[in-house]
């Protein structure tokens, strides 16, 4: 699969996970790696980029393992972006299924 395409899908998955509930970095990587074959290297840069773009905000929470943990939380503009992603993705999938089922021929 094209690396750029895969990156886009992973970005959407990251946004979806954080949309469900605020998560810390390791948790996001772990959740994704559980279900899809993902290159862990790419997740943190995605989290960081989404934060820079204002789609995520961060806050810290104390833990019993040492330094406070950084949590990522989706912002209003992040929710809007996620909604767009969802629409684009559904439209894309519908098209793919139509082609695979031979309905466009």
């Amino acid at each position, binding site marked *: 699969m094209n690396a750029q395409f895969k990156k886009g899908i992973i970005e959407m998955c990251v946004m979806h996970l954080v949309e469900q509930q605020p998560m*810390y*970095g*390791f*948790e996001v*990587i*772990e959740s994704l*790696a559980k279900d899809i074959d993902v*290159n*862990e*290297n*790419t997740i*943190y*840069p995605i989290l*960081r980029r989404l934060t820079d773009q*204002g789609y995520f905000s961060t806050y810290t929470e104390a833990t019993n*393992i*040492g*330094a406070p*943990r*950084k949590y990522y939380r989706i912002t209003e*503009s992040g929710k809007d972006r996620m909604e767009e992603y969802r629409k684009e993705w559904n439209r894309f999938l519908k098209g793919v299924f139509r082609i695979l089922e031979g309905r466009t021929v």
Partner: protein
Amino acid sequence: MKTEYLAKIKKLLSEYEISKTEIDDIVSDYDGMYEDGLAKGMNEEEVQNFLGNPEVIVQDLAEGYERKERLRSGRKLVALSPFISIIIFFILGFGFEKWHPGWMVFLMTPISAVVVEFVARRSKGSLIAMTPFIALIIFLALGFSLGIWHPTWLIFLAIPIVSIVVSAKNKGLWETLTALSPLVALIIFIICGYFGYWHPTWLVFFIVPILGIMNHKDVKKRIIYEVTLLLTIGLYLLVGYISGRWGLGLVVFLLPFAVSLLMNDVKLEVEGKFAWLELSLAILFVIIYIGFGIWLKTWGFLWMIFLLIPMVSIIRKVKGSRKIVALMPFLSLIVFFSLGYFLGAWHVAWMAFLSIPVTGILVGKEKNHK
């Protein structure tokens, strides 16, 4: 092992033009994730495999940042460019009596700065960053050689157009056309206005909703709205040209509103793409624009009121220092057009557009130094 892993990330990051605060933040994040991995019962090797290879991580994180040494040599060239410009300027002036347009060599400094900062980074935005200068050169060339400053200034609209086209691959055809439509409408409006046809050319702005509706999923609704809008425009022109009472003709614009109310769609559209504030402003500005246009013939400059709609959206949605960067094209367009239209100073007014790249560079630098 953790210390070495984090030190490697830090060292690799420090080879790029990334601020110390940002590097420390990234390292601290990896420190936290490393601890999380250990707390989950992983051994150090497993944690490192899980988090990834520092080289690959940094490669991804440093996307868009230039390596220090490459940028440094580029910046040396930028630093030298004012001196080179002065030498060329004097050669052209004293040697060939070409003080004008020889002064244009001073544009070399901002252009080289943009080339170094954007093109050398191989950023996708390099074409966008170069457009203001290309537009400026065309504008000055046509302005000084043929004296047609107005409406040549419309070339500056190539800046947002290029930006929309470059980012179009992430959008659909209709979405891209909708985004381009206000700019295209403005170009048509100003050119026709230049020849005295401000009214009824302002109707060209209806191209925005006409294309916008094409993004609607429901084909039936698309057809109904397109027919309604075209019918409204047609009726307005008919009433205006037959009776000459353009003010009365405005009543037909209630038709699309009535249709959208009947279709129970006003709420849907407002929630989708616009906020209520923008929609109310748009309606208010249309009323002001047409009202004053018919009453005081202010067609030629009052169109700038419509620039307030995207500006309000930017103020509401864009955060931090990016806000001023996003607002600058609109502000400079208002300054430029006002100086040109009211004072006839088109040949000086273009300088307002320099504020766009200058703000971009200043804010960009400020962000990098944070």
